[in-house]
């Protein structure tokens, strides 16, 4: 599938629905996506924190790696173990230990041990699919991710991409469970990071209890020919409203979650990004991932910079690229920033010199040439509401 430029944007299966719902569409990662609907970013954000928001995230890259027919080990356990072993050569998390029906957040590393993407990996719940490796990568880098992963998976493994034939949508918020249970009975029993197929209208849909807003909720993968009907079924419920990318960004920022290409990129490693927890003890002991020497040294002695939360003390938001100063010199940079509707104040994330990373440390933000007071803040800004 060719990459699209802005004149040739791809559309998701929910494009017509967005139009009917009054969405304002913008180009995003090669797709024409809804940035907001009629009520606007702030109302959509607050609705999601209080009720349930439906997000079109079909631009992202869900996919499975599996052995080609007649190749690979015989049992699903052995097949998954071998795929996990290969994936672990470029991913520093323990993947082989995943039980069927479980997902894990992790990062894809460059050869230098910096972050090529952040992603979810999982082991499917049932039957022969237990021998597959499932993953969801970011829209903007999916071609590169699939190329890098395919290279380590080898010739006997094939990639099935769902991003053109199926639609990933997210239902997020405290009422998501009650809403989805009414449509897909059984989902209420799932725990955070479980994933499993469910029957709907004679088809299978894949449900995970996950998301990127800090709220409880689900991500649902539906075949394209049923995607609009499924979304419409959710929207029939008065507790559900459609939510655009604008609120998705402010929700994930308040939740302290990283946006690839902004808070994470190939210049950052998992330790300075505050993601050392994705590297489990077994992987640290094996030290067999790219850049392990550098990463483990940063883990032992502390990185030079750290990702932190930042609270501007005045009302002016500090946007991405804002320089952070302390003692008259630049000590860091804002990588995501805006206004947090739930916090009712501006919030930001960025990187600062490690000795200034403690919450409460005063810093200055250079906004339009003027130094404005701010302080380092703990992340997340809004407590996570996951069902563990």
């Amino acid at each position: 599938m060719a990459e699209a430029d802005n004149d040739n944007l791809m559309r998701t299966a929910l494009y017509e629905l967005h139009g009917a719902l009054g969405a304002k569409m913008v180009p995003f990662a090669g797709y024409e996506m809804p940035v907001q609907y009629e009520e606007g970013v702030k109302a959509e954000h607050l609705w999601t924190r209080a009720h349930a928001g439906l997000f079109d995230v079909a631009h992202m890259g869900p996919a499975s790696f599996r052995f080609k027919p007649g190749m690979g080990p015989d049992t699903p356990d052995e097949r998954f173990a071998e795929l996990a072993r290969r994936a672990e050569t470029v991913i520093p998390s323990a993947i082989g230990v995943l039980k069927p029906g479980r997902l894990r957040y992790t990062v894809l590393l460059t050869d230098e041990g910096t972050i090529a993407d952040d992603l979810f990996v999982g082991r499917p719940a049932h039957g022969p699919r237990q021998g597959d490796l499932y993953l969801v990568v970011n829209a903007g880098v999916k071609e590169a991710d699939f190329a890098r992963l395919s290279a380590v998976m080898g010739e006997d493994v094939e990639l099935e991409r769902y991003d053109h034939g199926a639609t990933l949508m997210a239902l997020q918020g405290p009422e998501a469970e009650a809403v989805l249970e009414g449509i897909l009975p059984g989902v209420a029993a799932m725990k955070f990071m479980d994933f499993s197929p469910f029957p709907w209208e004679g088809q299978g849909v894949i449900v995970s209890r996950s998301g990127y807003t800090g709220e409880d909720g689900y991500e649902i993968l539906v075949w394209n020919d049923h995607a609009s009907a499924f979304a419409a079924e959710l929207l029939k419920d008065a507790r559900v409203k459609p939510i655009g990318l604008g609120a998705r960004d402010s929700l994930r920022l308040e939740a302290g979650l990283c946006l690839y290409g902004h808070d994470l990129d190939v210049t950052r490693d998992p330790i300075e990004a505050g993601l050392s927890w994705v590297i489990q003890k077994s992987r640290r002991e094996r030290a067999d991932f790219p850049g392990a020497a550098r990463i483990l040294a940063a883990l032992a002695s502390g990185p030079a910079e750290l990702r932190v939360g930042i609270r501007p003390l005045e009302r002016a938001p500090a946007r991405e690229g804002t320089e952070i100063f302390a003692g008259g010199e630049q000590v860091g940079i804002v990588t995501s920033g805006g206004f947090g509707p739930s916090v009712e104040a501006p919030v930001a994330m960025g990187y600062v010199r490690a000795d200034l990373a403690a919450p409460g440390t005063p810093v200055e933000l250079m906004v339009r040439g003027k130094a404005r007071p701010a302080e380092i803040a703990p992340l997340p800004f809004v407590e996570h509401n996951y069902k563990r």
Partner: protein
Amino acid sequence: MTDLTQHPTYFTKDHEWVTVHGDLATVGITKFAAEALGDVVFVELPDVGKACSAGDDMAVVESVKAASDVYAPISGEIAEVNDALTDAPETVNEAPEAGGWFVKMKVANADELSALMDRAAYDDFCASEAS
């Protein structure tokens, strides 16, 4: 006090409006602009006494998502700013062409007003931008 019964008279292609009373011009952003921006969360206003030339950056309006510049529609000195926007930036969304005004300027050159659009021309301009 701003005369809230008087509707804006002049408009720019950058979606500012201007209402003139005597040698003072009240300036704000239009309803069209406010709707396009979405929820305004912060407005940065210039210092009183600052001299602006037509087209200069004069103020900044920030929505949840992004920051946008507001330009001086005409030349003149800033005589007054709408301090109420500091604590209630949402006024820009609620009453963009009335209580959500940004600044009052001393009109330096009334001839510059003739270069601006009237309401009918501005409405046509917005319609062409939206299509």
